[in-house]
């Protein structure tokens, strides 16, 4: 047993470095040969398949309670993860892909290791000019511009931006019976029961739940400099992983989303997205007033995004405006966004910085002044990274999180440290 936290963190980082060094010792050529061995083709190359993946070793030094959806009461957490991708191309028109993970949960936690399929989809592209393609399966949302870099190798950070991981006090399992209860759930007022404090994380919804791998269909294509995409899924963008594979009455109120992007050249991309879905699970129906259904309470989201890349710079920005329609309380509005920049200082050393912000609208509080339903926050993430080889990279991340004061609660600042070693094959 290692007694002190700094020593434990140093021990973990040293272990990561040793493992990293060992992996580096296996030359880049080994990984290239492995990649070749995990590829197969037949019928004169018209059917091709490739198995690839990443191995992540993550270490966290966390505040209490742990940020975002990290589910632990510990201050230090080690999280290994194996991610496997299977990409299959059938001729020029048919593409299948799947992603499976073995880890301690979609977000790091204390639970036992588990294996699950996060994505599996079939895409058909009937036209050679890319005017349209159709996709069916369980796959990441088309909303926003973060999804293409949400994998551990592509993401310059270890965490997700605030809109994709900050848990609001909106629950999907039940609706609040009063404003006071809703404010308790949002940690705007103190006094949340011990039971809820221990269990609430699994009920709380963010604005967008990470890549939102829900089940459904999508159409997308390119018309000149414009790209369009639209999806119809069983669960909305705020839904949590437990909802993404559900069928049956989940399809009573399908979720819809669309994105239109304009890319005048490879340097710039601008996009707008919209999404509309009920955010309540079927189990929330008994908590609704008589005559009302889940479909009456929706999350309506509008988003704008921009991306820029030139030489060794990459910049992204997104802003979301989302409205949760709450029974008895009215509309709970929130605005969340971030600006993120990455720069390669040398061929192997890069750094990234991100400023996140989320603000909450007000709800009527009887005769008293309207009250913000959540605590406004900002977060700064700084992440240096180093590519040891074309297949191995090490990232560190420091996050400073600030939540504004609310009612009897003082403002809070918390810090999170994380390290992630990734081997890609």
């Amino acid at each position, binding site marked *: 047993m290692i007694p002190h936290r700094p020593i434990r963190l140093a021990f973990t980082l040293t272990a990561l470095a040793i493992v990293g060094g060992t992996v580096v010792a296996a030359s880049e050529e080994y990984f290239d040969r492995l990649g070749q061995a995990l590829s197969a083709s037949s019928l004169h*190359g018209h059917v091709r398949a490739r198995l690839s993946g990443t191995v992540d070793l993550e270490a966290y030094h966390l505040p209490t309670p742990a940020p975002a959806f990290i589910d632990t009461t510990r201050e230090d957490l080690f999280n290994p993860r194996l991610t496997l991708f299977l*990409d299959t191309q059938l001729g020029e028109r048919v593409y299948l892909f799947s992603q499976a993970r073995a880890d301690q949960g979609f977000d790091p936690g204390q639970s036992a290791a588990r294996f699950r399929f996060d994505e599996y989809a079939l895409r058909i592209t009937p036209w050679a000019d890319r005017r349209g393609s159709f996709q069916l399966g369980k796959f990441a949302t088309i909303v926003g511009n973060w999804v293409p870099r949400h994998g551990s190798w592509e993401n310059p950070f270890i965490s997700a931006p605030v809109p994709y991981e900050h848990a609001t006090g909106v629950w999907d399992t039940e609706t609040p019976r009063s404003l006071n209860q809703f404010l308790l759930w949002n940690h705007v007022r103190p006094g949340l029961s011990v039971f809820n404090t221990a269990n609430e994380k699994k009920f709380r919804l963010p604005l967008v739940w990470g890549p939102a791998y829900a089940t459904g269909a999508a159409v997308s294509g390119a018309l000149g400099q414009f790209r369009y995409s639209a999806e119809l899924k069983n669960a909305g963008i705020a839904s949590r992983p437990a909802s993404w594979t559900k069928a049956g009455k989940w399809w009573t109120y399908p979720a819809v989303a669309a994105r239109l992007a304009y890319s005048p*050249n490879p340097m710039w991309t601008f996009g707008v997205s919209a999404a509309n879905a009920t955010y309540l699970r079927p189990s929330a129906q008994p908590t609704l007033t008589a005559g009302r259904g889940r479909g009456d309470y929706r999350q309506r989201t509008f988003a704008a995004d921009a991306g820029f890349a030139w030489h060794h710079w990459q910049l992204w920005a997104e802003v979301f405006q989302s409205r949760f329609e709450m029974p008895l309380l009215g509309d709970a509005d929130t605005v969340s966004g971030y600006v993120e920049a990455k720069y390669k200082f*040398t061929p192997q050393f890069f750094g990234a910085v991100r400023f996140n912000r989320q603000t909450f609208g007000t709800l009527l509080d009887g005769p008293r002044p309207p009250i913000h339903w959540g605590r406004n926050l900002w977060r700064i993430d700084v992440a240096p990274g180093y590519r040891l080889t074309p297949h191995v990279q090490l990232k560190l991340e420091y996050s400073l999180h600030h939540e504004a004061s609310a009612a009897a609660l003082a403002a809070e600042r918390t810090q999170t440290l994380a390290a992630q070693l990734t081997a890609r094959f």
Partner: protein
Amino acid sequence: MTHCRVPLLALLLAVLPTVLRAQTTIEGRVSLPKTTTAPVVNQRYEIVSKGGIVATNPPLAVVYLEGDFPKSPTPPVAQLIQKELAFVPALLPLRVGTKVEFPNLDDQYHNIFSYSPPKRFDLGRYRPDERPIPSQVFDVPGLVTLRCDIHEHMRGIVLVLATPHFVMTDVAGNFRLTGLPPGRYTLKAWLDSKTTREQAVELTAAGNMRVDFPASP
């Protein structure tokens, strides 16, 4: 008549050293490995898929004459193109000191980089119409593996050689190396990073040789 002989003699004297110095040719065949599996393009988060069939690059070998040769007075320039999400050519042998330009003929970004010890660089993202065309000088002999930070399936190889005498085989493994100076050398056939075959050769002033590199037993 005399007026004609003088220029003719001068011409002969001018070309004679060249004729005596470099007229040897080596022909032969290299046994090439089997065609490798073509890559699958990762398009999971590409909103717009484009085809998906990437040209298979058949295995080729580079045959070169190893020895001490004078340096080139003017550094040569070569091009390695990015087209349809592939490096063209996929294998580029060149003489040490060569400047290589990397034009992007696709309508999207590429980000070429190499972590190979002889040449470590990262060109970053640049527009197809950007000038000057990004380039690198390869000034250390060795094998340089090129990759793209955006398209993980892309692979290119630059073989930097300390000799001006090299040639690539055709897909059947046939090669013809011309203009070689007389002397004793080592003829090498590079097949991949782990496989280089070699034979000692003695070249005379005017004669053709045949050298085959059969597959290893």
